[in-house]
């Protein structure tokens, strides 16, 4: 099936999201100090990107996404989404974005089709345009067999699919996904991630997602930002962040005839080195480009080629490094 989801998304030079100095605090009652959730967040997301906001529970991810989707007003700071001010142009902006919350909640007594129709109408869709869009989404998310099932009878996975289908009802240019795979089993989470990737690739849809699932961010996001206690601790493409923080891929070389006399520290791409008996543990910036030259460098000095074990760097390390 050909996706008919994307409008001609203008790849303008202005970012899809441009936030500067966003602050948000919540009152805890009259006589208690308010809780500061966002403390000066700057964020820039390019058109067509899948951008991940990572952080532990309570880091402010949902607050940030709620501000950008106009559900919440910031205390200070400014932000434009698709070139529209989130406060001044909120009404216009809502026409062009959509949001899927971390857990799918819809009116329990309405069927899948009725829920989609209701939200379609809220975006001004009526008549054949609405019917066509609903059919398209039911088909796209394999919801056709469940179209007459009321929401309370759906499984968690189906509910989440309905939630994603609803986000596309207005053919948005920017999609906000707040922990989209939270509460789903592994199989369904993988399926949903593939759907998200497919949407991005086939329609050029810009997606901002929040997650505390590092694997998810690794699989989906071209760029991530780490939110820590209301501030963005680090932003960038994952490999760039690794390099910036000195994190890399682990290479374990085991020499049967002892470690050759090589100054491993000076080899290109080596971030750190530790020699333990006949083993050398190296951390390289990019294993795929560094391994072959490194082995060539070692070869004349070692009678036998070493046994090579590789462990690629992952976000887990990056996350722990930033969270420290």
């Amino acid at each position, binding site marked *: 099936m050909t996706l008919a989801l994307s409008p001609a998304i203008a790849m303008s030079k202005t970012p899809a999201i441009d936030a500067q100095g966003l602050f948000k605090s919540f*009152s805890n009652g009259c006589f208690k100090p308010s809780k500061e959730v966002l403390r000066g967040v700057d964020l820039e997301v390019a058109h067509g990107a899948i951008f991940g906001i990572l952080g532990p529970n309570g880091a402010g991810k949902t607050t940030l996404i709620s501000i950008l989707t106009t559900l919440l*007003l910031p205390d200070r700071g400014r932000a434009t989404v698709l070139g529209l001010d989130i406060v001044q142009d909120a009404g216009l902006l809502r026409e062009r974005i959509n949001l899927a919350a971390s857990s799918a909640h819809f009116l329990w007594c309405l069927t899948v089709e009725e829920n989609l129709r209701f*939200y379609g*109408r*809220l975006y001004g869709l009526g008549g054949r345009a609405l019917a066509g869009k609903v059919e398209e989404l039911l088909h796209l998310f394999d919801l056709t067999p469940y179209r007459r099932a009321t929401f309370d009878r759906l499984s968690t996975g189906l509910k989440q699919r309905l939630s994603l289908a609803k986000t596309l009802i207005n053919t948005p240019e920017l999609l906000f996904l707040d922990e989209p795979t939270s509460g789903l089993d592994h199989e369904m989470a993988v399926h949903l991630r593939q759907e998200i990737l497919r949407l991005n690739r086939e329609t050029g849809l810009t997606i901002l997602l929040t997650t505390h699932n590092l694997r998810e961010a690794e699989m989906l996001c071209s760029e991530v930002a780490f939110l820590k206690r209301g501030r963005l601790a680090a932003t960038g493409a994952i490999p760039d962040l690794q390099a910036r923080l000195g994190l890399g891929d682990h290479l374990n070389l085991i020499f049967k005839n002892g470690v050759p006399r090589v100054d491993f520290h000076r080899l290109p791409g080596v971030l750190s080195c530790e020699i333990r008996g006949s083993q050398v543990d190296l951390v390289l910036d990019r294993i795929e480009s560094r391994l072959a030259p490194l082995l060539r460098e070692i070869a004349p000095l070692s009678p036998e080629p070493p046994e090579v074990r590789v462990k690629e760097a992952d976000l887990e390390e990056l996350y722990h490094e930033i969270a420290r």
Partner: protein
Amino acid sequence: MKLPADLVKIWAFAARSVLINRRNVFALFEMVFWPGISIFSVGLLTKFLQLNQETVTFVLIGAIGMNTIQIAQLDLSYSFLYDVWAKSLRHKFIAPISLSHLLLGTGLVGLTRGCLVFVIMTLLCTTLFGMDLGRPGFTGLVIFLAGMFLNAAILGILVLALVLRFGHRAEVAAWAFAYLLFLLCGLYYPVTVLPAGIKEMAQFVPLTHFLDYFRHFYGFPRVSAHPLLYGFLESMLYLAASFLLLKITLKSARRRGILLKLSE
């Protein structure tokens, strides 16, 4: 035919309210059972007290008015409450809708249900307790109904503002709030019997004037010289004020994170 987007958005809320009512057996209870119980108990009380027909009609008009207003305002309250219970409020407010779409759409269904309740209650009162509803004429009836729906709209909007301000704690207001109004407006008694101070307050309740207007057709003296003027003036004023209050409360809810809290 392609409806303008605004009409489609209003229709969205109306169609959803119809579906909710159709799926919920208790919606029928709301329309028939409770109002029926109310009419029966009030009607039988008038028989026990051996009231004359005019006084019976006086009391029954109050009972009909109360049930009609309650049903009509509940539909407005439900426009939020169902989303609060389903935790889906954020979906509604991330969509490009205004409060007018929501109020007009759900108000339309409230108006229809209110009319149905009015007809059912009137039939009951006519057949069981000999009430003559034809005396005020068609115009009198329409004006009385319009007055009741205006009051229902004011109440409904105030309930929405309370729910947006206080969240789940204010849910009970949807059912209880109207009774404060009924106490003041002289539902089963003329406002002249109210204690001093409260009697004057009753003049600031528009329903007082609409009941006053409708009851004068049955021979009861008017409390105010211009009940319709005061009734409509106060209604419009309160309607505008309550709508403004709701808009302010919604803005405050966006600032305080209430929309998110009510969606969790």
